[in-house]
């Protein structure tokens, strides 16, 4: 299984995501430049964190127009796996690959801290049997306040598309939502950083569990390898 980590101008967690999958899980991982028009046969496309194009407009509002995003959309439509972390989540929302939007934290301040997250029963890849009831992952964002209209929220909840909720809401997100998936279940987005929770010296190694869960939808053997 091949992992592609996108690089936009202003991506700054691209190396973190790269090392989560390469050093952390030992998987073949490569970078894909935003001007490329193909994701190079990747099984999982990771849209990493950072400040794409500086995020001086709405976060992710410019990155969604990068040439590579056409290829990401095709990959997703073919059922390929996509994981957006932090700015990557914001970009996937702006690109319409995930519903909702992320606005300024209710504190109006950036927040960097480790959060306890409640794992939801969100389908074959994301559930408490694979992941456990809780994970502990760092966040680092100024605009992670998840918003969606009432009908959209109802759809998210009834389809079990919510992946993770904050045990203590750090940013004002609606229903404490920290991560969601699309209806089809192959596109994942989350504000917390699995790419900051995998080294032995990190406060938690739950990033590995979450990364494996995302991959398990297409590659169930990844779970056996970890056992």
């Amino acid at each position, binding site marked *: 299984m091949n992992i592609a980590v996108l690089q936009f*101008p*202003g991506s700054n967690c691209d190396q973190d995501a790269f090392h989560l999958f390469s050093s952390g899980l030992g998987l073949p991982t490569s970078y894909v430049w935003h001007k490329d028009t193909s994701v190079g046969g990747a099984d999982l496309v990771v849209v990493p964190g950072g*400040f794409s194009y*500086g995020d001086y407009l709405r976060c992710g509002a410019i990155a969604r127009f990068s040439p590579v995003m056409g290829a990401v959309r095709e990959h997703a439509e073919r059922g390929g796996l996509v994981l957006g972390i932090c700015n990557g989540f914001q970009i996937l929302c702006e690109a319409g690959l995930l519903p909702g939007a992320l606005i300024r934290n*209710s*504190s109006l*301040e950036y927040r*960097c801290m480790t959060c306890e997250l409640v794992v939801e029963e969100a389908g074959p890849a994301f559930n408490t049997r694979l992941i456990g009831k809780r994970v502990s992952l760092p966040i680092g964002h*100024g605009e992670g306040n998840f918003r969606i209209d009432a009908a959209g929220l109802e759809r998210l909840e009834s389809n079990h598309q919510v992946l993770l909720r904050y045990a203590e809401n750090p940013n004002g997100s609606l229903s404490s939502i920290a991560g969601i998936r699309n209806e089809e279940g192959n596109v994942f987005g989350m504000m917390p950083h699995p790419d900051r929770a995998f080294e032995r*010296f990190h406060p938690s190694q739950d990033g590995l569990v979450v990364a494996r869960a995302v991959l398990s939808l297409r590659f169930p053997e990844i779970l056996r390898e970890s056992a």
Partner: protein
Amino acid sequence: MKRADLPPNPDPVLNQPITPELVKKHGLLPEEYDKLCGHLGGTPTLTELGIFSVMWSEHCAYKNTRPLLKGFPTEKRGATANFGRVLVKAGEENAGIIDVGDGWAIAFKIESHNHPSAIEPFEGAATGVGGIIRDIFTMGARPVLLTNSLRFGELDSPVTKRLLRGVVAGIAHYGNCVGVPTVAGDVYFDRSYEGNPLVNALCLGTLRHDQIRRGKATGLGNPVYYVGAATGRDGLGGASFASKELSAESSADRPAVQKGDPFMEKLLIEACLEMMAIPGLVVGIQDMGAAGLTCSTCETASRGGAGIEIELDQVPQREAGMNSYEVMLSESQERMLVIVQKGREREIEEVFAKWDLHAAHVGTVTDTGRMVVRHHGVVVADIPAASLTDEAPVYHRQSKRPAYLDETSRWTPEGSGLRDVDLEGAKAALPRLLALPTIASKRWIYRQYDHMVQHGTVVLPGSDAGVVRLRLGETEKFIAIKNDCNGRYCYLNPRRGALIAMVECLRNLVCSGATPLAMTDNLNFGNPYKPDNFYQLKECVEGLAEACRYFDVPVVGGNVSLYNESPEGAIDPTPTVSVVGFIEKEAHITRQFARTAGSRIVLLGGAPDELGGSQFLGAIHGLKTGDAPAVDLDAEKRLQDFLLAQIRAGRISAAHDLSEGGLLVALSEMLFGPARLGAEVDLSGQGSLRVDALLYGESQGRILVEVGPGDLAEVLADAAASAVPAEAIGSFRASAMLSVATGIGTLNWPVADLRSKWESSIETAMKRPGLG
């Protein structure tokens, strides 16, 4: 008289006669003006006058401090062929570089942005971060961590709140976006910084020895490139602005404060590192920091022993109609000057095209030794490059011991009739001290900084020192970093205060399991023309130099910020030091938080017995007096060597040094970790001492350590053999209480109450109603 060879400037405004008023407005003294005319062989053009004024400012030329700085050791005596050699020394380049072994090195430096932050805290602090990051990657290093050292007035003032909010948001804005983690810092609040906050930012980067780049222009005919952001009128004359005292009119200087674009900086980092990775392409590179295009051209030429010619029409500009004075003096951010090998122009242009950045061929390296600037086909400046750098004036200022020292240094609690605390007073003092913004948790600040990006942060902000894993090719190494300076001690005893800044910083590193390696300093002082201020500066520098020599910690670079005064007077002298320590093995990494109930608490260094300069005196008695605590370098060295040996032997599970607030504050802070323990200690055996000095005095060279019961006998025996005072004073407990027996009775506090006072103090002060 204009020199015969220079034609009129295309912009008529720049052809006005150079009057004494104009010279004064440029911050140059009449004798300095005469000197520059001598270098030119005639009168300068207005563009040239501007160029001299910024290059001969304190900020660029260190004209008042250069003789003092010569006392700093710049090499490491204990360096070996594979570790600790200083590869680029202080003052040679934009940042110093030191060998960390296996062909790898680190570059680091601290720099101030005090005056811009006083006027416009957000942009001032943001661009301070941007500037220091450029100083690091211009050396060829990838920036991997940031720290900052901040000083503000007391937090009860609305002005301080506005400044703190703005500075923290500015640092966060820049550092977070550019993707370099802010892993440590220090913050003090004291009236003396009211209206003149200090914002010192440090960046550290990693590189292989063969990746070191220099800011040198060499090779006749080599092309000079300008890369990065376009030039605007922002930050005009920022360097000379930073060399003036702040006054009520300073806000009229706002155009001298630059505006940062961290996104541009991120692109510039990646593009420059990509360019520098191409073998043999880059001859020299320098960032355009203070004094922008002026400084980068004359410094590269002067270092290379060459000349440089630039054509301003080729400089990317974001405003129409800028004249040569404005282009040369602009301090627009995120710009670099690069000299590349002739014939390889296409390679640099391709890299910058990939990153959608400007790469403009603006000039050529010559062999004339002169910096020649053309605009619209006309020579607007023609100056010997070395006259701007090496020949800048140097002054030995007058120094006079300030009169206040006679009074403060003689003060003693007995002499002034200060009564010792009673049981009630001793109990009330601890929560009050823990809630002092200088002592309280800085979580409100550091949670706004991304301190985890690049996934190498091992010890998060809030412990004695930041610890980071460096990924160096296929290997990894661990370093610790810490800033320090208690300005109150430096005010009360400048030389000793500076010594304390160093030894305390080293002690913090040792508590983290690190061996101190090298340091960078930021000298923040008042106007050097005032003999009182210059005395403080001179004494502090000598104190730092003494400690550096004693502990074999070389200075690899630094910054001087003078004229830190507000209408109320000069700031407390603040020679901030930042030391990097090296951690041999990951297992040696030690935190300040107690881990296990039942483990023993050992006090190293003896019982504290001084009150001078303490936070206790300030907060409880409203006094800023007494002598700074005593320093015994030999005892300090024995203590630090002993602790490091014990950590390496695996006998220490937590270590925390006594600093502001003394013994009980340090002990409380050890309880504020994830294990949520209590503690029970007995200090009643120290009955001969003043209770306030014992509990809250700030005697130096003291450390509290957590030791397993099974290791206690060996730790105490080794301490005795090493001539380090050590005493088991109690145990950590699985209880909710901190209990302290003293000669006047037993004190009890619920740890949760202490913790909440400590944790919420700054947050409560900074709370904005209605926001979650």
